[in-house]
Each structure stands twice: as structure tokens, then as C-alpha cells.
């Protein structure tokens, strides 16, 4: 073997080894790209463009921070159940209370005091009365819901009607590949205004079925006590923070988001979480269109930095 042949042979062998190593590495290691901030959306998340279509509001120099008054006791649960006409004994599991033995089911969560109340056969069923032709008009549904809440002592000062949403159930028939509406009810949604500010998260939702029957209820409405006033940031500063953390928007990647309103207020954690304080936030109402479907909602930026970003 000549020297030249040996060199060619060694170079070829080296290339082969490199190719094998490269192939192996490409199989073992997934494609790594620059990591973005984790998203809360379980689809391709994070908008690429935020469009401000709202004026920055006048804002107070300070806002009150409230402490959350715990009311999540068995006695609270019993009291609410009684007012709703529940006669069955409440069962306890993991410090929460419920009954599902009667016509109405009742579930009271210990963490936030949120409770739900359902007429099982109607709200979770396929009763032919729960169809569009038997549902009340939206304005009548709101009256029915409000009257029901007041009659049961569930109504709250500061409850404010926001919207009515229809819920749907279908049967999908395979033989002719059709869908048939078999169930429709209405949810009347009341939000909360507290000392002049919106409290996002606190809500009362009344489900209404055919004949205007109230068939369900969900309520989370924490009790707050003033703690201390804090200076808040400006809406411009809040907007800047929002731009820096656009992953807050629960829409898919590349979907432009339009900010339609900016205002100071409060926002709660979910009903599954305990809260010690109700803290001021800037609320940004937004609109987007994702794959032809309008998406609306509100995201929040904490307005008192010294209380943390959560």
C-alpha cells in the first residue's frame, strides 16, 4: 500500500467514524433551539404581536391590599347547603364537604369556599326539556338567575351581570356521519365589583335549563378585609411588563393580540388555591382570532411590585 493510498484510506475511515458519531448524536439528542419562556397554553403558545387599541387610564396613586378572611369551615358548608334546601348529611373528604345522595348534589371546596350545586339529572343529563326551544330569552334568564340567588340568600352585593353562555351536548351518529343537538342549557355569569374595582375570578354562575328551571350553580366569592394601602405602578409600566411576558396570553403562537381595555382592579387565584391577600393588578382585556375563532379574555400584571409578581 502506497503512502497516498494509506492516507486516503485513513481519511475515508475517519469520515466514516465521524458520520457514525454524527448520526448517533442526532438520534440521541433532540433538536435543541433557544428555549422560550414556558407557556401556560397547551398548544403552540405565545403571541408574536401585541397591538394596543386602548387608552391608558387615569389611575390612583395607591390601592388597598385586602386580607382574605377564611370562611371555609364545615359550618359554612352546612349553612350554604341548608339555604339551598339540601337536607342530606354532608360527607367530608380531605377537608371538603359534599353530598350526592339527593336530587341535588353539593360540593364545597375547603380551600376557597367555592361551591357547586347541581340538579344531576338535568345538568349532567340528556333531558329533552333542555333544548333551545324550551330555554328562556337571555334577559329572562338573567332575571330568573338573580331571583333564584336572592331567594336562596346566595346573592351578593357587588354582583354584576356579565354574560350568558350556552352549553351544548350532541350525539354523533356514525351511520350517516351527522351530529344532533340533544342538550342545551344556559350559564348566566355574574362577576364582582368591590369598592369600585373589578375582582376577576370571583363569580356566581347560574345554570338554567328548559322551562327556565335553575339546574346548577357555581360560586366563588371570598371575603376580604382591608389590610394596607400601597403605591401602584403606572399603566404604562404595567404594559411594558406585559410586553416582556407575552406568554401570559392563552392563544397560539403567531396569533396577534389586540388590547382593548386597560384598567386597575383585582384578580384572584383559582378556586382550587388558597389566598392570603387580594392584591391590586392592572387588567388588560384582549381580543384575538385563532383559526377563525374569536378569543377574548383578561390578563393581569401585578400593580404593587413590592408584593411580588404572583
Amino acid at each position, binding site marked *: 500500500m502506497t503512502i497516498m493510498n494509506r492516507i486516503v484510506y485513513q481519511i475515508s475511515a475517519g469520515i466514516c467514524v465521524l458520520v457514525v458519531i454524527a448520526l448517533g448524536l442526532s*438520534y440521541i439528542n*433532540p*433538536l*435543541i*433551539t*433557544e*428555549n*422560550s419562556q*414556558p*407557556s*401556560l*397554553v*397547551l*398548544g*403552540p*403558545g405565545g403571541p408574536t404581536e401585541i397591538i394596543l387599541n386602548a387608552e391608558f387610564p387615569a389611575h390612583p396613586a395607591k390601592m388597598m391590599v385586602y386580607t382574605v378572611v377564611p370562611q371555609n369551615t364545615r359550618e359554612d358548608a352546612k349553612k350554604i347547603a341548608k339555604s339551598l334546601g339540601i337536607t342530606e348529611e354532608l*360527607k367530608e*373528604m380531605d377537608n*371538603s364537604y359534599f353530598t*350526592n345522595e339527593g336530587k341535588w*348534589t353539593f*360540593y364545597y371546596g375547603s380551600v376557597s369556599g*367555592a361551591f*357547586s350545586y347541581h340538579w344531576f339529572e338535568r345538568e*349532567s*343529563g340528556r333531558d329533552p326539556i333542555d333544548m333551545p326551544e324550551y330555554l328562556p330569552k337571555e334577559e329572562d334568564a338573567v332575571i330568573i338567575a338573580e331571583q333564584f340567588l336572592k331567594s336562596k340568600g346566595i346573592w351578593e352585593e357587588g354582583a354584576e351581570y356579565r*354574560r350568558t*353562555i350556552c*352549553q*351544548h*351536548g*350532541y*350525539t*354523533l*351518529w*356514525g351511520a350517516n*356521519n351527522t*351530529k344532533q343537538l*340533544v342538550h342545551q342549557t344556559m350559564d348566566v*355569569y355574574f362577576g364582582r365589583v368591590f369598592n369600585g374595582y373589578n375582582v*376577576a*375570578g370571583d*363569580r356566581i*354562575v347560574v345554570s338554567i335549563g328548559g322551562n327556565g328551571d335553575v339546574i346548577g350553580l357555581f360560586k366563588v366569592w371570598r371575603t376580604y378585609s382591608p389590610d394596607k394601602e400601597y403605591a401602584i405602578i403606572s399603566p404604562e409600566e404595567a404594559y411594558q411588563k406585559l410586553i416582556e411576558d407575552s*406568554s401570559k396570553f*392563552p392563544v*397560539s*403562537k403567531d396569533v396577534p393580540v389586540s388590547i382593548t381595555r386597560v384598567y386597575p382592579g383585582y*384578580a384572584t387565584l*383559582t*378556586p*382550587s*388555591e388558597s389566598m392570603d391577600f387580594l392584591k391590586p393588578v392592572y*387588567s388588560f382585556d384582549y381580543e384575538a382570532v385563532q383559526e377563525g*375563532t374569536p*378569543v377574548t*379574555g*383578561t*390578563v*393581569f400584571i401585578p400593580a404593587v411590585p413590592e408584593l411580588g409578581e404572583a
Partner: protein
Amino acid sequence: MKRKMRGISWNWRVLAALIILISIVTLLPVTGETTLVSIDSRPVIGLPPAIPEEKELIPGTNAFKQPVAEKSLILDNPNYVITLENGWNVISVPKRLLPGRNTAIVVFESIDTAGHSIYQWDGSIQMWDAMGANDIVRPLDGIFIYSVGSQDLELYFDGTQPDPAEKIVYNQWNLIGFWDVYQTCARDTLISIDPGWSYVIGYDPISQGYEPAIFNSDPSRQELMFPGKGYWLWMNGGDTMQYPKAKNYYFGGEYVNLYHGIEGLSDVHYGFENVNGFWTGLSTATNWYGRYISSQPFKLGDDNAWERHWKEGAMDSTYADNVHFAYFHGHGCEEAIKFGTYHDDPTLSYSDVRWGNTMLDWVALDACNVLKDPEETNLWRGSFAGLHGIYSFASNSISHQNRGSEFSYYLKTGMTIWDAWKEAIDRSTPSGSQQIAAVLTAKDDNPTTQDCYYDHLYGYGYQINPPGYPSDFDYDTEVITG
């Protein structure tokens, strides 16, 4: 030599055919009242034995040649009612009957059989056996009973549910009953005698003929068997049918937080919290256990969560289809759920899955848009191979750390699974956000039974077993605003 072998083989075949023919002919005469065919086109080894012919029939009498008795006055409502149709019926009692109300004379005294005896089949000697007045009517025993017109047979169960039920079954024909009051597919009903069972045949009392046989192979074994009915069972060898008082159920799941930029997907939050919350919550549910695979909990995440664990023909029968309830958390879209590694294809498409043909009954896909709308949901129909339901979203799903634990909590309260999913999302939707919970559940073609839409967790309410490859579905959406 080959020709000689073929000759011997042919002779054996003829001999076997003759033996079967003679055994059918000599077993018992066929009555004119019963149709013995209607088995589907697949081959069966032999027809079920014919009912004994009876000559001395007495109208207006029960099976014990007594005048039909008035129903005795019992204040309690019966636990179960079997409606007997005119002619022969093949029935069974779904549970042990109350002592004092469990003998043949008491159970059947008010049934006008026109004097026909009530028959069971002794599989040990392959012969009919007429029930005596004091014989105990037991679950798992199939019973041939004649009815003059339509009559209700009222049953009172022994509420103490003392022992597991067992029945020895023998080589060749057995006449068995159905245990429990909820329909179940043949695969699950007969799992204790698998793989020895070859096929079962039910009887349609309205047409007075046999139903198509259900074979021990897919997709046939996904067909349903029903409470209150009796079935002919063909066994290859003996075994014991066993129905424990308590059965064990399994759960598991996978999550992906880290996507490494695959397909442009961003990383997400709370996968571990959700799957672990679901796992921890169900761990305290009665008779529910987390699935361990090679001593590792099936609670895998990120680069250890693989498409093949959920894919038909890959490893789903060891992972996702090896539990009764599975939970996935990660990215999704109308056609697929997404994994974060190129170890396998990162996209698990609807066409990749056939869930339930091993074990999986329910799957929560905590991922965006999987059940976005009915038309799109049609895509997932083919994934139901024994699966009862998919619980997911018809919109973007907004991850929250408490969803898995909330879901398992409400499952244990006795809510339906769909209600528990809605409740969990109600309580874990961030303020100011809106998402649409969605469910897709199998329907059977029996309008008299409930559907999987109303399923509860095993041990916490009733559930309905679906046919293996349903064509019809229930589909609900619930808009939830935080």
C-alpha cells in the same frame, strides 16, 4: 408416504365430523319452538344443544307442575327485573339472591311456563338438568325457561354480597350466566377463563333464535354481554369463572414540559404537578393502584414520555393501554398530542391509537383542542377499541398545577367522570381566562341502557361498558370562564 398421510388425515376428519354429528343428533331432540341457527358466518364447532322435548304440558302451570301462584306481596322494590318474552328465554340472575327468595320454587312460582321444566346444563357430563323446586338459583348459571306471554321476573339480591362468585366450566359446552348488573364486553366478562374460551352465543327471546356468536378474537370479543342473560359457552379445556368481590384497577400517565423547540413548540408548565396530582389522588381511591412497569411508576415525564407508550402496535399495551385510566399533559391539537423527543415520532396522531383493546377505559388528554368540534372529533372515533371516553378540551387548554389533583378528588366523590372533569376545570381555570372542556364517549346501540357519558370511576358509581368499535358517540362541550 405423503399420500398415505393425507389419507389418514382425511379419515380422521370424517371420523371427527361423524362424532360431532352423532353427538348433536343423540344429545336431545329439537323442539319445534326453538331456532338453533342465526350464528354469523364464522365457523363454529357445533350448534348449542337443543332443548329437551316435553310431551305432558299443562297450560296455566309453572315449571313445577303447580298452578301459577300470585306474586307474593313484598313491600320492598325488587333489585332487578328480567322481562321474559313469550317462548323460550335464556336468563341468569346477576347477583346472589336473598336467602329465602333464592330457590327455584320461590323465584319462578309465579311464572306460567305452561308446564315446561326449567333447564340448566351440566357441563361436566354435557347433559341437560331440569331444576328441582328447592334448587338454589345461582349467578353464573344460565337457565332456559319458557314463558307464556311476556312476564316480569322479579329478583331480590342478597345485600351482604358474601363471597366471590365462581363457576367451574368444562371442555365443550357450558351454559353460563352474566355476573353483575352492568353490561360488559366479552373480553372483560370472560377474562378469568381466557384464553380457554372460544366463543359465546346469546339467545334472542323475541326472535326465538340465537344471536351471532362472539369469538375470542378482536374485534369480536369487544362485543357486549348483558346482565340478566344466559349464554352458551364453548370451552377448549376446563377452567373456573371467577368474579371477585373487589377488582383492582390501575392508573398512570405521562407529561411533557420540555419540548426542546420541537415543531416550534414552547415548553409548558405544570406537567409533573398534574400527572402526579392525578396519581396521588387516585392512590387513595378504593381498589385503584398506580401502574408500575419494570418497577418504575408509569408517571413518566419529558424525554421519558414517548409516543410509543400510547401507540397501537408499539408499546401501548404495556403503558397507556395497560391501565384503566390514563392522564396526559402536554401540547395538543385537533389531530394529535405532542411529545418532546425524537426518540419516537413526537406526534401521536389519532390514527396511531386504538385504545381499550387491552385495558384502557378512560383517558384525560390535558392538551389544547384535541376535541375541538364534532366534525374534527370524528377523527378520534377510530381510537375507541373498548375505550369508554376521552376527556379533553375543545379550545386552548390553560395549564394549571391543580387540575390533576382536583380531577382525582371529584372522581372520588362519586361524580360522573365528565362532571368531575368539568368541576376540576371550573376550579383550575385562571381568572380572566376562558376554556372549553369537552368529552367524547362511546354509545352502544341499546336504547334501554345508559351510555358511557354517565360513567363513574370504578367503585364510585355505575359505568357502562361500550362495544369495542362503536359507531355512535356523545359529545359535550362546556365553556368555563375563570
